[in-house]
């Protein structure tokens, strides 16, 4: 076991990351249902979701079941009734006595690290407020490795809401660890916070200037709720729409990624192009989460 809990991508070394990605590759056939493997038989995972989630929760559930384990779920609705009377510390203390691993999503930043301090079993962070989402980062890296053949020395553009996106904040640190050239494309009010620019090497650019040379275009949803009015949102959202035409000048092997759900940042006409990898990316969440569960449970 290289780590007991998985709270932040920064807790992992380069070696740890590569170890997980290689392990995920070995699980891919199992994730596709082509092979059976019951290495986690008799183990139980608890999904503690204090915020709604579809993909993350279901892919953890799938990952656990593909490896022969079982899952108990606490939904956002049940969580809200617990929250009225019980502290997170007590909830985690109790549930960690029932199960072998806890996956948690919670609206407060730092909640997953705090939960790990009160848990008798491994805790995996599935998103803590605007903080960390390390399993998303690992599946993003896995997608890049599978589709580009490597995760280092690539030209990668991150586009959209770079200010609030926890996905971007985790990913950019990992990409920097592997010496990638990072380009940032965002509307004025949604630029990457200064504190990140102090830590990582990245250049703010226009998509048109780099579209011919980039290997990866990672698009995030511009979050409507951050804008003071609908009109402002429309202006910005409209200016960052990727269509098949946008990609005409791109390299043949450029891949377009998105953590999903998308709203209208990527037109559906991109889905049919060879560049679209966001649905594969969503699938890769399963083998990567299998690898993480295997790592903390075996």
């Amino acid at each position, binding site marked *: 076991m290289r780590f007991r809990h998985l709270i932040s991508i920064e807790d992992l070394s380069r070696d740890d990351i590569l170890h997980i990605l290689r392990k995920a590759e070995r699980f891919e056939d199992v994730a596709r249902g082509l092979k059976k493997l019951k290495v986690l038989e008799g183990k139980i995972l608890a999904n503690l979701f204090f915020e709604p989630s579809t993909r993350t929760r279901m892919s953890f559930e799938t990952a656990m079941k593909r490896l022969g384990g079982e899952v108990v779920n606490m939904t956002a609705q049940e969580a809200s009734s617990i929250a009225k009377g019980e502290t*997170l*510390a007590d909830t985690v203390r109790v549930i960690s006595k029932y199960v072998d691993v806890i996956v948690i999503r919670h*609206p407060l*930043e730092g*909640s997953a*690290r*705090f939960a790990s301090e009160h848990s008798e079993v491994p805790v995996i962070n599935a998103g803590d407020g*605007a*903080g960390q989402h390390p399993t998303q980062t690992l599946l993003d890296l896995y997608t890049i490795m599978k589709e580009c053949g490597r995760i280092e020395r690539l030209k990668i553009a991150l586009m959209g809401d770079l200010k609030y996106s926890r996905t971007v904040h985790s990913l950019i640190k990992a990409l920097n660890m592997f010496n990638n050239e990072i380009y940032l494309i965002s509307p004025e009010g949604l630029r990457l916070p200064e504190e990140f620019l102090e830590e990582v090497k990245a250049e703010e650019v226009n998509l048109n200037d780099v579209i011919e040379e980039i290997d990866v275009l990672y698009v995030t949803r511009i979050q409507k709720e951050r804008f003071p009015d609908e009109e402002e949102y429309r202006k910005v959202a409209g200016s960052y729409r990727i269509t098949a035409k946008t990609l005409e000048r791109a390299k043949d092997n450029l891949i377009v990624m998105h953590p999903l759900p998308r709203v209208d940042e990527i037109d559906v006409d991109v889905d049919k192009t060879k560049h679209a990898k966001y649905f594969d990316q969503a699938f890769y969440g399963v083998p990567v989460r299998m690898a993480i569960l295997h790592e903390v449970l075996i």
Partner: protein
Amino acid sequence: MKRELVISKIERGTVIDHINAGKALLVLRILGIGVGSKDTVTLAMNVPSKKMGKKDIVKVANKFIGEEELNKIALIAPKATINLIESYEVKRKFKVKLPDFIEGILRCPNRNCITNSREPVTPKFYIKLKDDVVTAKCYYCNKVIRNVDEFVI
């Protein structure tokens, strides 16, 4: 006749000198000396100083405050010096050393941080000194505090 401000010597205890001017009350707060405290404390603020222009001094009688405790002062007074006094003599003198990690003392400015919820949790911070400025990074949410003085609990 030249008149000088004299702060009386203590027979035994801890003298904290070279505190940045105006920060003595914060130093006491960090050391947990406040309302209800029974310690005999002498405090001088904005005393002329050759090195610092002006400085504050705190003397706590009959108490030897632990080094680890005193090092926390470095958060707001990185140049503070400590004199441990016995029979009016300096028995030991040292400069405070900025700790790498602290528990308590500060609160996280991020309102959405778990440490600002009703959970039973003590805030913890990684401490760094860069270009003479002390910064604290929240152990839980990674928020960086650059104006540490404002967040002393």
